[in-house]
C-alpha cells in the first residue's frame, strides 16, 4: 500500500488570501448584503454586539438597523419571522445563537419553513437561511455543544449544510442565501478560529450537495463533516505514516448529500469509516452507511465503521474525550483494515 499525500478538491483559483472560518462567514454575509437589498440579517445580539461569536461584527454599522438587527430573545420568533419575510420576497438570514437553542424554533422550522412550498403547491416559497453554531470542543456543556443536525436532515424540504473550511464556509453560505430553499447552516464553532485557509478574493459559491475529496487514497475511505474534519485529516496523516493510503471525504452538505462521491470512493478503497460527533443512534452517518451497503456492497472488504459521539448528553468536563478524536478514528480504521 502506498500513501498519497496530495490534497484533492477544492483548490481555490485566482487571487486568494488566508482567513479563518468565522471571517469567511462575515465576508459572505457582508458581500450578500451588499449584492442584494432583499437580504436582511437578524437574531439575538447580532446588531451592535456583532453576535456572541462576532460573526456579524460591523455589519449593522455598515448596512444599518433596517437590515441588520437584534430581535427579542425568542427562537420561535426569529425563525417564524424569517418564514414570513421569505414568503414576502425577502432573503432573511437568521442567527440562532447556539444550535442547542433551536428547540423553541423547531416547530417553525419543520412545520412552516420546510413545508410552505410543498403544502401550498408551490404558490409560496421560503428561501431563508438559519445560521447556527453547533458542535462541541469549547467547554460549553450540553447546551452549547450539541450536534442536532439529524433532526433537520430528517425533515424533507430543508437543506442542511456544515462546512469545515473557510473556503466552504463562504461559498456554501453564499449559495444558501442565493438559493430558493430553506437552509439550515450549521457552523462548527470550535473551528471558527482554528480553521484557516485560502479563500478567493473574487465572488464564488460552493454548490450545496457536493462533497469535497480532501485527500485521495486507495486503502480506506474516511468520511466526515464539520468539526471532526481536522481530526479526520490527522488520522489520515497518521495512517499515511504507517503506509496506509486513506481517502478523506468532507461531505459539506448533508441534505442533499453526495452519494456518488462516497460510493465512488468506497468502490475504490473497499473500506469506509464514518466520523461525526453527534450521538450514535439516529446519526446522519447511519444513512451514509446504508447507502454504502446498498450501492457498494460488492466492493466492501470490511464492515462499514462508524465513530460518533456517545448516546449521552454532552458533558462539560471530558468533552474532548466525548468527541471522536484521532485515536478513536484510528482504532476504527485499524478494525476495518484488519477485518
Amino acid at each position, binding site marked *: 500500500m502506498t500513501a498519497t499525500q496530495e490534497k484533492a478538491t477544492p483548490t481555490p483559483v485566482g487571487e486568494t488570501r488566508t482567513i479563518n472560518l468565522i471571517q469567511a462567514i462575515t465576508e459572505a454575509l457582508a458581500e450578500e448584503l451588499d449584492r442584494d437589498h432583499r437580504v*436582511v440579517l437578524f437574531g439575538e445580539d447580532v446588531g451592535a454586539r456583532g453576535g456572541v461569536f462576532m460573526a456579524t461584527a460591523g455589519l449593522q454599522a455598515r448596512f444599518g438597523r*433596517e437590515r441588520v438587527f437584534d*430581535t*427579542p430573545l*425568542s427562537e*420561535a*420568533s426569529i*425563525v*417564524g*419571522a*424569517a*418564514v*414570513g*419575510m*421569505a*414568503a*414576502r*420576497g*425577502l432573503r*432573511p438570514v437568521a442567527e440562532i445563537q447556539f444550535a442547542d437553542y433551536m428547540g*423553541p424554533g423547531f*416547530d*417553525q422550522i419543520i*412545520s*412552516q419553513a420546510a*413545508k*410552505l*412550498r*410543498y*403544502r*401550498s*403547491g*408551490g*404558490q*409560496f*416559497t421560503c428561501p431563508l437561511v438559519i445560521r447556527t453554531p453547533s458542535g462541541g470542543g469549547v467547554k460549553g456543556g450540553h447546551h452549547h455543544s450539541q450536534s442536532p443536525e439529524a433532526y433537520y436532515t430528517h425533515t*424533507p*424540504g430543508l*437543506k442542511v449544510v456544515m462546512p469545515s473550511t473557510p473556503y466552504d464556509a463562504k461559498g456554501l453560505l453564499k449559495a444558501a442565501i442565493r*438559493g*430558493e*430553499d430553506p437552509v439550515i447552516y450549521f457552523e462548527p464553532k470550535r473551528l471558527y478560529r482554528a480553521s484557516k485557509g485560502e479563500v478567493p478574493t473574487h465572488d464564488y459559491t460552493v454548490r450545496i*450537495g457536493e462533497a469535497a475529496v480532501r485527500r485521495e487514497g486507495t486503502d480506506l475511505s474516511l468520511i466526515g463533516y464539520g468539526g471532526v474534519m481536522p481530526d479526520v485529516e490527522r488520522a489520515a496523516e497518521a495512517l499515511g505514516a504507517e503506509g496506509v493510503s486513506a481517502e478523506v471525504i468532507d461531505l459539506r452538505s448533508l*441534505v*442533499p*448529500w453526495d*452519494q*456518488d462521491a462516497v460510493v465512488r470512493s468506497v468502490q475504490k478503497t473497499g473500506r469506509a469509516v464514518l466520523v461525526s460527533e453527534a450521538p450514535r443512534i439516529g446519526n446522519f452517518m447511519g444513512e451514509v452507511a446504508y447507502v454504502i451497503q446498498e450501492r457498494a456492497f460488492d466492493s466492501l472488504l470490511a464492515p462499514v465503521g462508524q465513530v460518533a459521539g456517545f448516546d449521552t448528553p454532552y458533558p462539560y468536563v471530558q468533552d474532548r474525550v466525548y468527541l471522536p478524536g484521532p485515536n478513536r478514528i484510528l482504532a476504527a480504521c485499524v478494525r476495518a483494515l484488519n477485518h
Partner: protein
Amino acid sequence: MIDPHTPDPIQYVGEDGTPVLALPERFTPALLRELHRDMLRAREFDRKLITLLRQGRTTFYAQSSGMEATQVGLARSLRAGHDWVWPYYRDHTLALSMGVPMYELISQCLGTNSDPCRGRQMPHHFASAALKFVSISSSIASQVPPAAGSAMAQKYLGTDEITVCTFGDGATSEGDWHAGMNMAGANQAPCLFVCENNQWAISTGVRQQTASATIHIKAQAYGMPGYYVDGNDIVAVMEVCAHAAERVRRGDGPALVECLTYRVGSHSNADADAEKQYRTREEVGVWLARDPILRLEKLLEHLGEPVSPEERAALIAQTHREVDQDVLRAEATGQPDWRIIFEDVYADLPSHLRDQAAALRAEQEGARA
C-alpha cells in the same frame, strides 16, 4: 372613536336586531343585504360540504357556522388581494369573502387536479397566492410568528399593505402566539391579529384555556391595543376591524381584535358525536339564539327592509347549485398522480429524490402493466 380594552364586547346591533349604537352611515340597506348574502352563502357552503363528507367525497371538514359575522366582517375590513392573510384552518368563510373562488376551495377539499395546493394538504387547508391568502398549517398558532415577519417585511418594503393573522382562542395558549405577538409589538410591525374566539378548542373550553378574563386584554402586554367586539354583530365587527386595520395601515403598530363568537357545530367531523359530551344543549341553544345571520335579518326587518322567505330560499338554492356544479367540475379534473409526491419539496429535484421518484415510477408502471 372606538376604544380598546373595553370590559364588554363592543356591540352596534342588539340580539333582537335593534341598534344599540347609531348605525354608521355606510351601513345602508344595500350593504347590509350584501353582507347577509355573503353570510348565508358561507352557511350553505358549510351545509353542502358536510353532505360531501357524509357521501365520502372528502375526508375532513371544519365548519364555521355561527362565526360568519366575524369572518365576513373581517374580510370586508381589509383590502382583498392587497393585504396579506395568514389564516387558520376554520377560515373558509373569510377566504370566500376575500374572493377565493368557491371552486378552488372545493377543489382543495377534494384534492383534485384543480386544487392549487396540488392535493398535498388535508381538506380545508387551502392557499391562494393570487389573493395573498397564505397556506394554512394544522400546527396551532404556527402562523403567528410568520405573520409578524410578513409585517416586518412589509415595513421594510415600505408599501401600504398590512398583514392579517387569524387564530382561535386555543391558539393563544401556544408559545408561538406569545412569540409572534411580542415580535410584532417589539418591531411595531403592521400586523392585525384577529382572535376568532369561538370558545372551544375541540373539547377544551376557553375557561380551561386561560385564567385571563378575556383574550383582548393580553394585547397590552405586547404594547398594542386590544379591541373586544361582539363577533356575532357584523356591524360591530366591521367597525372595529376597519378601525384597527386603519390604525395598523397608517403605521401605528400592530393591534389585536378579539371577536367573541361561537362555533355552533362540532370542531370537525372527527368530534361530531363526541361534541355532545363536552358542552350542553342549553349552551348551544343560547348561542343559536344569537345567530349572526338571524340578527342581521332582524336588523333589516327593523329597518323596514326585510329579507323575504323567497329571497332567502333563492339564495340558498343558488349556493347549493354553485357547490354542486363546482364539485362535479373539480371531480372531473381527476386526482393528481404520483408525481406530486416529489414536486415542490425543493425548488429543484435533488438526486436522492430523483432516485426515489424513478423507483416509484417503475413500481407504478409495473402495477399498470
